[in-house]
């Protein structure tokens, strides 16, 4: 029987050792270790493992970056794992090419079950992470909708909005753009009208939702 080859890419020796010890009891797994992107890259080349467990904080540039660079070059199914997980992180990992995401709190039985699932073509994602993932996808869609609305703004209005989103008052915006306060007010009125927003604060949230990674849901609620 061909054993499933797994590489654990994690700078933390404890987690590598934990996985190695755990899977050492299972006859169908063979485990390799990598503590950095370079070592992971070498093992992928030399051993062609079936699965790579990649730490979110893998040196030097993190697990998402590692997956983005290596996934297109190898058939190895890459699973990212980490301590603190947010919807943006899960989405970034999956977008980069990860086939799943695990939390480091995972139980030994859950870990083995996940690996066997990957072999069968499943994507490991705990129930909590699945919810995060769905939220992230919704957030992405909302951001796209927000960006579509932002197209209506002129470049000057966008400049004004960027400053307002950063907390600038009308006088500061006027100084920054070398225009009068009256003109700033007129731009703000136009911005609120075009975006159908009720307030300056909502406009600021809109800007961050459209052009920065702030949840669009807050903007929608304010609007």
């Amino acid at each position: 029987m061909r054993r499933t080859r797994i590489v654990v890419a994690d700078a933390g020796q404890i987690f590598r050792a934990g996985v190695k010890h755990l899977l050492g009891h299972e006859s169908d797994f063979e485990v390799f270790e990598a503590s950095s992107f370079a070592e992971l890259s070498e093992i992928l080349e030399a051993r062609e493992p079936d699965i790579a467990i990649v730490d979110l904080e893998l040196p030097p540039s993190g697990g998402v970056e590692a997956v983005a660079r290596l996934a297109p070059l190898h058939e190895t199914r890459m699973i990212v794992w980490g301590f603190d997980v947010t919807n943006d992180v899960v989405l970034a990992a999956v977008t980069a090419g990860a086939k799943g995401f695990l939390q480091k709190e995972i139980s030994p039985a859950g870990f083995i079950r996940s690996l066997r699932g990957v072999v069968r073509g499943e994507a490991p994602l705990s129930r909590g992470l699945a919810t995060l993932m769905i939220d992230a996808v919704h957030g992405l869609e909302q951001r796209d909708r927000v960006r579509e609305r932002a197209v209506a703004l002129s470049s000057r209005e966008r400049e004004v909005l960027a400053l307002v989103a950063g907390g600038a008052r009308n006088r500061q915006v006027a100084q920054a753009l070398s225009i009068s306060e009256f003109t700033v007010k007129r731009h703000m009125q136009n911005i609120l009208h075009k975006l159908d927003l009720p307030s300056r604060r909502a406009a600021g949230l809109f800007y961050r939702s459209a052009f920065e990674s702030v949840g669009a849901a807050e903007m929608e609620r304010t609007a």
Partner: protein
Amino acid sequence: MTAQARTVEPTVPLVAVVSRYPLLAEAVEGALEGIADVRAFPAGQGDTSAFLRLLQPAAVVVDSTEDADAAGDFALESGATLVQVLLREDRIRLLHAGRWQNLSDGSASPERIRSAVAAGIYLRGYVSER
């Protein structure tokens, strides 16, 4: 009890790993193979200190500061070895004579945990009288 009547049997020391991360217990179990009986217990299940008093392990390995504090009381009372593995910081600390000592310089390894736990167990005397 006379000296002849006393029977001394070697017992395998018990090491309790109280952690949110079961893979830490796996690593400790691997590191202490042949040295100790390692048992994993999930963190945050209630009164760690009282639980350890009932269990009476020779050594305790924890990861969270809350459990380190709780296990510290037990370790001071019982003389058990207490090791804290700070997984996020990749550091290991040992409670010695009521004070925490850093054991690793930048990297927490199973071997360092083994050294700390094994030294504590042997200093305590793992052969118990029955």
